[in-house]
């Protein structure tokens, strides 16, 4: 894919570690990365929903990102990092917390390098430094509500 000026279209992503998987979150959806966010469990919640947290005076649901994508948890999953991000379609987006194992770096990926595919919030895959990385669509998260 190219732009009107003949350049390759690129998007910026936050490379994260989630269990044994590496994933890329669209950077324009990421609001903050925080450590040790206190999460209050919610009785009756699915395993994907770790609970509720307070961020900047607002409530937000906190999700186990590894479970969202069906990733195998790491050897000692502690999820010390939470990505605060916008989820859902643009017209009804909401802030959520995504518990992950680590935020690695910001990367730029040509749009046409992404191989479409995957289920749920997985938009596709890309080869990054000779490793397969899942590319995530947060627009597809929680849009049913």
């Amino acid at each position, binding site marked *: 894919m190219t732009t009107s000026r003949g350049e390759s279209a690129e998007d910026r992503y936050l490379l994260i570690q989630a269990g044994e998987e590496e994933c890329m979150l669209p950077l324009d959806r990421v609001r903050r990365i925080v450590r040790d966010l206190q999460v*209050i*469990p*919610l*009785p*009756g*919640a*699915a395993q*994907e*929903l770790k609970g*509720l*947290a*307070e961020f900047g*005076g*607002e*409530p*937000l*649901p906190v*999700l186990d990102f590894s479970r969202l994508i069906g990733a195998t948890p790491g050897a000692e999953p502690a999820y010390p990092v939470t990505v605060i991000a916008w*989820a*859902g379609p643009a017209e*009804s987006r*909401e802030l*959520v917390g995504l518990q992950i194992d680590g935020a690695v770096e910001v990367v730029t990926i040509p749009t046409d390098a992404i191989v479409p595919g995957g289920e749920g919030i997985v938009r596709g895959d890309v080869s990054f430094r000779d490793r397969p990385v899942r590319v995530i669509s947060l627009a597809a*998260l*929680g*849009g*049913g*509500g």
Partner: protein
Amino acid sequence: MTPERVLLLRRGGGLWGVLHEAVRTVTRGRDGYRIWLRGQEIAADEVLGVIEGLPVWPAGGALTEFWGQRARGLAVHRATPLVVLDPESPPAIFGTHGTDATETSDGHDDQPSH
């Protein structure tokens, strides 16, 4: 976000809220409280009081998808996040089975105790 008048209560170790306009009566028993809502009766371990103008955010798609319960919204009180219940569809943990209500309380307008 909409400021609401919310009755705060504890149940199952957590902090919850219910819109005050939905509360009909509060009754205190030996082992907790019963709260009569519009067409529903719920149990609470503790009633903390009413907060005026508590900002309530809509329950978004993530909560709806992964909690599986209806909610009026989400709020934060003193840095603690909470669910504001849908008075017509409270979660199962608010069931009144086993709650003994013997003493009537008029504590709707109590100040929060924490």
